[in-house]
């Protein structure tokens, strides 16, 4: 599973509060991703990172920001949570450039509920 952990695994919060989700990897991979999963939409990319301090937006980035100050950690922040951000959030890493090529591996997910 490429040593990916996510924290917290479950969170309930109130509308308007900031929330930070953490993705941690142990194997020094360069590429990291945040997705949200919603019924009928599959996985949608929020933000991704291609190196320390190098990030870019995905297709559903509004209301989210990210930071990557160390290779192993990729943080996703909901600046002011809304009910539409209730979702399951998955972190992924890509083994780009290695023997496995461009294969993504996923973390266990964080279930976020915004009341």
């Amino acid at each position, binding site marked *: 599973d490429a040593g990916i952990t996510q924290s917290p695994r479950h969170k309930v919060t109130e509308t308007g509060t900031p929330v930070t989700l953490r993705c941690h990897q142990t194997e020094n991979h360069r590429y990291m991703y945040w997705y949200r999963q919603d019924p009928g*939409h*599959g*996985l949608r990319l929020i933000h*991704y990172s*291609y190196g320390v301090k190098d990030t870019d937006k995905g297709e559903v980035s509004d209301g989210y920001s990210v930071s990557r100050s160390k290779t192993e950690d990729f943080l996703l922040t909901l600046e002011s949570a809304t009910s539409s951000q209730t979702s399951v959030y998955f972190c992924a890493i890509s083994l780009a450039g290695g023997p496995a*090529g*461009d*294969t*993504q591996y*996923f973390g266990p997910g964080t279930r976020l509920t915004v009341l």
Partner: protein
Amino acid sequence: AQSVSQHNHHVILSEAASLELGCNYSYGGTVNLFWYVQYPGQHLQLLLKYFSGDPLVKGIKGFEAEFIKSKFSFNLRKPSVQWSDTAEYFCAVKATSGTYKYIFGTGTRLKVLA
């Protein structure tokens, strides 16, 4: 822009039936293709992938997929499904150059009846 279509949203099969799930993508260049499986309450796990070479790829748990370049398709197959194959299946595509992004289909929910 790249996109991925999975035409079957829900599939119900009896055990031992054969399975074929459709996946079509839109992109004119060279791509890497993936199928992932998500069991209830779990994260996505890689079933199989295609990078180059033989267009018929075999994955875990008896799954296989065939890349047909002329049809922009990468359909997933299994000759005989089991109850334990009940899950959601996602097709994904990544261009081999110019992007770090992976595009996922909306998924197919498979239910296998014992």
